[in-house]
């Protein structure tokens, strides 16, 4: 059993015994954070924490470091699993192509259609005002806002209709969600929330102009969903290449100190640099 009184002797001490005991202390602290101390060790450790404020402070500081290292490990695992996901998706596409190869006529027909479609899309792409850099920036910052409406707040009328609309939204069935939101807008009092989610659904469907209209119809005096509205409208302006309007809104978002502020600050820096 390690005698905890030897913990945190200065490292520059030349005495080997003290160095060894320092190592044992570190081992104990690490095992404390890994929940692998024995019952007896845990009792002694917690007594030491309660009675020695210097020791408690050291342990707390090591806790912060271990927490960061654990997060880094999780981040690495996440990246590993994302790469497996990409590999899964790409191997699926290769399989489909092997099947098609068996039917020459069908393959030729499909290739011709793909070529025509590609030509049309390419010409549309170059004729629109979105540059590839904007597309990349937008894609890296846009995330669908989660459903925070259902189960529904008491202040929203027609609870079942909102619930149904948000079910479509949650299931990423944005076309049906937009139809449901349109019906709600005819009768519901809570326009800001519905306009907001309709705009988000329109954004995911690529209809940025109509999304912009929804955001602009929202009542910004009411305060409901205004921070969120400003962030997403900024992204819409970015997509529509209206950088000045985007920057104005981003500055508002930064000034609001909301949870979008950090992202807004980062995007603002990128826009200013370009």
């Amino acid at each position, binding site marked *: 059993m390690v005698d905890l009184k030897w913990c945190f002797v200065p*490292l520059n001490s030349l005495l080997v015994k003290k*160095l060894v005991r*320092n*190592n044992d202390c*570190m*081992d104990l602290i*690490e095992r404390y954070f*890994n*929940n*692998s101390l024995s019952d007896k060790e845990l009792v002694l450790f917690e007594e030491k924490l309660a009675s020695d404020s210097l020791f408690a402070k050291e342990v707390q*500081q*090591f806790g*912060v*470091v271990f*927490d*960061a*290292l*654990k*997060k*880094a*490990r*999780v981040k*690495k*695992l*996440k990246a*590993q*699993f*994302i790469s*497996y*996901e990409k590999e*899964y998706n790409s191997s699926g596409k290769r399989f489909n192509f092997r099947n098609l190869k068996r039917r020459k006529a069908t393959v030729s027909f499909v290739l011709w259609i793909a070529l025509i479609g590609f030509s049309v899309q390419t010409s549309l792409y170059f004729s629109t005002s979105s540059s590839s850099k904007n597309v990349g920036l937008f894609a890296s910052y846009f995330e669908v806002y*989660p*459903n*925070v*409406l259902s*189960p529904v*707040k008491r202040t929203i009328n027609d609870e079942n209709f909102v619930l149904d609309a948000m*079910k479509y939204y*949650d*299931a*990423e069935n944005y076309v049906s969600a937009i139809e449901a939101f349109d019906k709600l807008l005819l009768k519901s009092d809570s326009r800001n929330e519905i306009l907001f989610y309709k705009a988000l659904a329109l954004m995911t469907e690529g209809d940025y102009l109509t999304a912009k209209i929804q955001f602009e119809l929202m009542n910004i005096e009411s305060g*409901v*969903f205004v*921070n*969120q509205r400003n962030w997403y409208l900024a992204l819409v302006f970015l997509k529509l290449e209206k950088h000045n309007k985007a920057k104005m809104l981003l500055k508002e978002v930064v000034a609001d100190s*909301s*949870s979008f502020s*950090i992202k807004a600050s980062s995007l603002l820096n990128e826009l200013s640099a370009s």
Partner: protein
Amino acid sequence: MSNCVITSILNNDNKAIEGYYHSHRSHFMSWAQLNYNISLTDCQDLYQEVMIILVTKIQNKTITTITTSLKTLIFGIGKQLIRNRLKLIYNKGVREELFYHEHKEGFNKIETDIRSVLIMSILDDMKEPCRSILKLFYIDNLSLKEIAVTLNYKSAECVKVQKHRCLKQLKEDVFRKLKIK
């Protein structure tokens, strides 16, 4: 079979981990989408979170044996995550916080995340062998023996002593910088 799973994950066998990932992925995704009406993207995130929990718990030795099957364990973890998520959604206080955009916990999380990024940048700036030892052990999850072989140390015990010195150094560097900030 269960022992093989534990052993391969403990040994950081990435090929085996990839195999486990792919072999249960489709079934898990279909189950989550059909039973809980979760979107495809959320299912992918959920499944990855399940696998992260499984791997870290085995590597931390929180899970030492699997008494049922790996599939049952994966689905069990998935169910628990979904339930936790639903509890959060159905918690009126949490919903209202999000609704009025009062991210009190969110701000704390952002602060913790920023601190983690700072700590990792300090780790990147450390001199060798500390940087390598700490990264290989805590992020790449190599054993002390493997690190001893990789970095040409005499024994795992030597690596352990050095690791503790490096950890103390890292902690001192971090809190010196945090005080300056």
